[in-house]
């Protein structure tokens, strides 16, 4: 006679007990299953916000590092880009459970309470890894230093660009010597160029993609042209609003005209796809370079047209930061330094994603100079239009969140340009009256001013 089988209830009960016991066991150990499984010497937890082409390049660079430095186990996590990322990073740092290394936009450093949410880099240790101040664009390095300490290790400069199709623009006679886009120097010239281009664009495709309804891009484009007009947001000491509503109105009217004149669709159309299909222009971040390269387009990319005189195009920088850990130091910290230094120094792969490298030796690398269209817009690093230095500024910060939708609603015609300009000024004034929530001892913001 076979032994009696356990009844179904016994089995279910046993499984249930096991599940409960196991769950409580893991909860009590408070370690995720993957952390228990890992067995490397040093584990560097690294957070970033790169997806798409940038994500692919970052993974390739991480893999190269893993081969070069096999003792360090890099555990990378990609979080949702933009504001959610910063929220998570700030909370992890304030809760003392931060990753060992993270990527951040340079403009966000003032809002991250250097010294409280961020730990300074050990410049000596970086030097041992082959990274020195002299190798960087001084403007970038200075922006990353607060109170004499380095909080951000710059990786790149990324800018908003005017992409143009050589085939379409050539047909319209808009190309100058050498096959690059001929310069324009006033709004009238720009719209004339668009008008000519329209004839060369086939079908009902839009002539220009400018993401009119997208708040972040709208704000970035606004900032570019507003800076061209010489406009500023805050005084140098960061105490007063210097926003010029007349200049802002001019810029908003300029942006709006693209929609009213029918050069761009107000909402819902994928600008990138339209460009692939035959739009003459699209305004985009340089991170779209790989997309257009993959499509084998004949195109170029330049700074946003300097229609108001002095050239300026919105730019930001990715940099590496050390989120605050109470017990920062030791092997993981050293691993973080090694990883960041390696990536900054080997950023050629990164520049294939369209970014201008922050590490100067790369800029002279002949492989970099051969990259197209990167070489065409490298001058953007000298014409950066940046957000004011304030705790609420920086990529997708509070300022962009509040002010971006205003620009977008003007673009699509829901609000009048002059009213929008006043609203933007109100936003700045209100933000300025808000106390920096991270202010307090150990926070020095003035140092971040450029």
């Amino acid at each position, binding site marked *: 006679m076979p032994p009696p089988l356990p009844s179904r209830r016994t089995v279910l009960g046993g499984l249930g007990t096991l599940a409960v016991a196991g769950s*409580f066991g*893991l909860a009590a150990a408070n370690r995720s299953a993957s952390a228990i499984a890992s067995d490397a010497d040093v584990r560097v937890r690294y957070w970033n916000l790169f997806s798409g082409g940038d994500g692919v390049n970052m993974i390739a660079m991480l893999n190269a590092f893993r081969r070069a430095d096999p003792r360090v186990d890099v555990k990378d996590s990609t979080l949702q880009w933009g504001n959610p990322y910063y929220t998570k990073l700030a909370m992890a740092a304030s809760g003392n459970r931060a990753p060992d290394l993270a990527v951040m936009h340079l403009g966000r450093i003032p809002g991250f309470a250097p010294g409280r949410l961020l730990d300074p880099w050990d410049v000596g240790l970086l030097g041992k890894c082959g990274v020195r101040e002299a190798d960087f664009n001084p403007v970038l390095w200075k922006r990353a230093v607060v109170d004499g300490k380095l909080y951000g290790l710059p990786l790149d400069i990324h800018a908003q660009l005017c992409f143009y199709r050589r085939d379409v623009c050539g047909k319209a006679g808009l190309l100058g010597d050498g096959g690059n886009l001929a310069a324009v120097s006033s709004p009238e010239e720009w719209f004339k160029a668009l008008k000519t281009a329209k004839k060369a664009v086939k079908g009902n495709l839009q002539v220009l993609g400018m993401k009119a309804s997208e708040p972040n891009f709208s704000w970035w484009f606004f900032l570019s042209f507003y800076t061209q007009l010489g406009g500023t947001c805050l005084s140098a000491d960061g105490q007063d609003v210097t926003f010029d509503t007349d200049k802002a109105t001019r810029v908003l009217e300029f942006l709006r005209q693209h929609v009213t004149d029918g050069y761009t669709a107000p909402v819902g159309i994928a600008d990138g796809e339209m460009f692939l299909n035959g739009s003459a222009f699209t305004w985009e971040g340089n991170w779209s370079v790989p997309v257009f390269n993959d499509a084998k387009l004949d195109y170029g990319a330049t700074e946003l047209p300097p229609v108001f005189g002095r050239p300026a195009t919105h730019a930001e920088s990715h940099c590496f930061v050390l989120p605050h850990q109470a017990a920062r130091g030791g092997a993981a910290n050293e691993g973080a330094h090694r990883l960041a230094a390696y990536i900054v120094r080997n950023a050629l792969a990164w520049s294939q994603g369209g970014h201008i490298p922050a590490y100067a030796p790369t800029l002279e690398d002949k492989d970099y100079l051969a990259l197209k269209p990167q070489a065409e817009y490298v001058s953007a690093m000298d014409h950066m239009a940046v957000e004011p230095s304030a705790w609420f500024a920086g990529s997708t910060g509070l300022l962009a969140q509040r002010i971006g939708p205003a620009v977008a609603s003007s673009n699509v015609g829901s609000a009048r340009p002059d009213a929008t300009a006043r609203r933007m000024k109100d936003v700045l004034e209100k933000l300025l009256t808000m106390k920096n929530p991270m202010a307090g001892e150990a926070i020095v913001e003035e140092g971040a001013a450029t």
Partner: protein
Amino acid sequence: MTAVSQISPRVRRRGPRKKWTPGQIVLTAIGVLVSGVFTAPFVWAVFTSLKSETEAVAVPTHWVPQEWTIQAWQAIFETGNITNWFVNSVVVSVCVTFVVVLVGALAGYGFARTGFRGKNALLGLVMAGLMVSPAVLGVPLFTTVQSMGVVDTYWGMILPQCAPAAMVYILYKFFQGIPKELEEAAFIDGAGRWRVFFTIVLPLSRPPLAAVGIFTFIASWNNFLWPYMVTNNPDLMTMPNGIATVMNSYGIQWAQLMAGGLVAGLPLIIVFVFFQRQIVSGVAHTGLAGQ
């Protein structure tokens, strides 16, 4: 208060075979149509997950994959996040369910059958607590949990989900309905309060406890808001949170996103197919308790 025991979600009437009357034909046809609309999104998700990423975004779009592939499914399991999150979801939901059922049964019984100073005032307080949730008081709840130092831990996710006044109220109502004579006989035999509770009351209460357990498990498995607020470390995230906040380095890949969503959603649906009766009565029961 409705007597919950009356709910019989599965009405099985034995009798003469049902006839296809014209009314039935029309109703059934409508039923099939509406069910089709309700299931279509699932079908779309399954088909998408079985396409290659390029086919998923091909124009014009189409339902059935031209080339069937399981690359999306392979990819999500290779990167490992999904399995991680799955384990985390199980850990959190199982712990929450266990604690809620245990603590809820004790408290429900305590309120229903024992007396102590200030009981009515406390009961009133618990009822007022029904209006509090992470959606309503999320920020203060977060700072409270933060000051306990359990942000980004399993306990930080679990414990705040373990004080559901609603479940206590449901069990309280149930225990009030159990005839007192059953207990009194045991008391006369000299059994203590705890023994009566564990040997007489609990065995009688399997259906409502199962209902509370099922409801709690579903709620906890699907909970997004609180884990979203309290976890930052991707290794510790639960399924709904991880899927929404952790990106694929290769951008939005719809086939993988759909496959991941199915991994998160299917376990409960499969369980539902097998335990339909219990789950339906569980949900109806907990919901109707508010009537």
